[in-house]
């Protein structure tokens, strides 16, 4: 399986990358771990690849109250990030992507821009309320994660934009997060994935709660109905279960099945993994 022929150009700067893209009508490639597999089976055949893999300024994680994650940061880097207050859910989700070799090449930006519903990071960024920074020749634009994922393999990025960074808040001070998923035993993608971010007050009462789900929905989706099941209570097994039930109800029929797992099962698993993510998030909210 080989890609169809294409032209290849390498960008030395974000500006040049944007120029090359507009001149060639090509596609950006960073790690290539979303794009190349699709090109090898020839479902995608760009005429030009604009390689942004050498834009080292876009690689790395910096703390600034929250955290700015450069688009070229690899999953491995995220999974081993040791920064104080770095969202635990993000770290653990990055460690669940593919396998070590894939995580060494795959980038956060590429993953997110690919907007694969079975991927893990979109779910986490949605729950964290991350902000995506899109850069075009006209400047930069911030897009909230909730608006960024617009559909199956679709994002709010325009053709003339490059996703350059993702910002997330820090946790601690009563906030905790967790990601939990049921692995497809073949692909390792999420059969159902859930990310929970919770704030607890001094006596363990939940003061805010955001849960996003993915894997089974066409895009990473924040479930709005869960807060009422949880906020104002301690997160016990019972409240987590209730939140799981609420999650099942809220996704309703908006669930995709496949040969490994049918719609019913995926929805049931969503309930289970929402509960697990909530429980884990609460245990980290210190």
């Amino acid at each position, binding site marked *: *399986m080989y890609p169809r022929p294409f032209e290849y150009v390498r960008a030395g700067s974000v500006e040049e990358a944007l120029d090359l893209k507009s001149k060639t009508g090509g596609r950006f490639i960073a790690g*290539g771990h979303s794009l190349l597999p699709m090109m090898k*089976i020839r479902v995608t055949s760009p005429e030009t*690849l604009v390689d942004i893999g050498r834009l080292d300024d876009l690689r790395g994680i910096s703390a600034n109250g929250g955290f700015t994650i450069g688009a070229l940061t690899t999953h491995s880097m995220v999974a081993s990030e040791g920064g104080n207050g770095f969202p635990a859910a993000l770290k653990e989700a990055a460690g669940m992507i593919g*396998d070590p*070799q*894939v995580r060494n090449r795959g980038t956060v930006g590429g993953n997110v821009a690919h907007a694969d519903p079975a991927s893990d990071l979109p779910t986490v960024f949605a729950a964290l309320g991350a902000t995506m920074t899109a850069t075009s020749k006209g400047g930069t634009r911030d897009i909230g994660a909730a608006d960024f994922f617009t559909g199956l393999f679709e994002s709010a990025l325009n053709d003339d934009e490059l996703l350059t960074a993702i910002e997330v808040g820090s946790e601690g001070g009563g906030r905790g997060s967790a990601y939990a998923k049921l692995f497809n035993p073949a692909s390792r993608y999420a059969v159902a994935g859930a990310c929970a971010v919770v704030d607890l007050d001094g006596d363990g009462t939940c003061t805010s709660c955001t849960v996003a789900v993915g894997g089974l929905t066409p895009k990473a989706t924040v479930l709005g109905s869960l807060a009422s099941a949880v906020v104002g209570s301690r997160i016990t097994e019972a409240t987590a279960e209730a939140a799981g039930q609420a999650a099942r109800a809220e996704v309703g029929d908006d669930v995709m099945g496949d040969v490994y797992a049918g719609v019913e099962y995926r929805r049931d698993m969503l309930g289970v993994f929402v509960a697990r993510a909530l429980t884990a998030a609460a245990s980290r909210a210190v």
Partner: protein
Amino acid sequence: MKVSMTVNGREVTGTVEPRTLLVDFVRNNLGLTGTNVGCDTSQCGACTVHMDGMAVKSCTVLAVQADGSTVTTIEGLASDGQLHPMQQAFWDAHGLQCGFCTPGMVMASVKLADGNPAITDAEVRHGLEGNFCRCTGYGNIVEAVKQGAAAMVGGES
């Protein structure tokens, strides 16, 4: 396009189509056929090499992306005719049968074990999630990686 890289300590250059996969560059242009291709969906790990110090699947990297990089393939692991401790451990522990997954398995294991001489069974089993073996049932591979990890201390990785 012209690409240059350091492969197994040697400067190499070649002219390739942009679509040439790194694995095909090392196999066909350089004649280093130790790196095998076992799948076409980036799953099996048979094609694992080290690129700039990291284990990567060379079937999912373009040769042009590796331009300027330092690459080590299975052929570059032994030095001065001596098997690398991980190769030796795979031999000692019967961690291979047909040998086809072995180069990728060994390359992945070297990185997995690096700096973790007391690596546990669970760490090895989880850490090899990107490498399939159809022959051994993995048990002896786990044993080999643990032995190799211990033997790598102080040596080259």
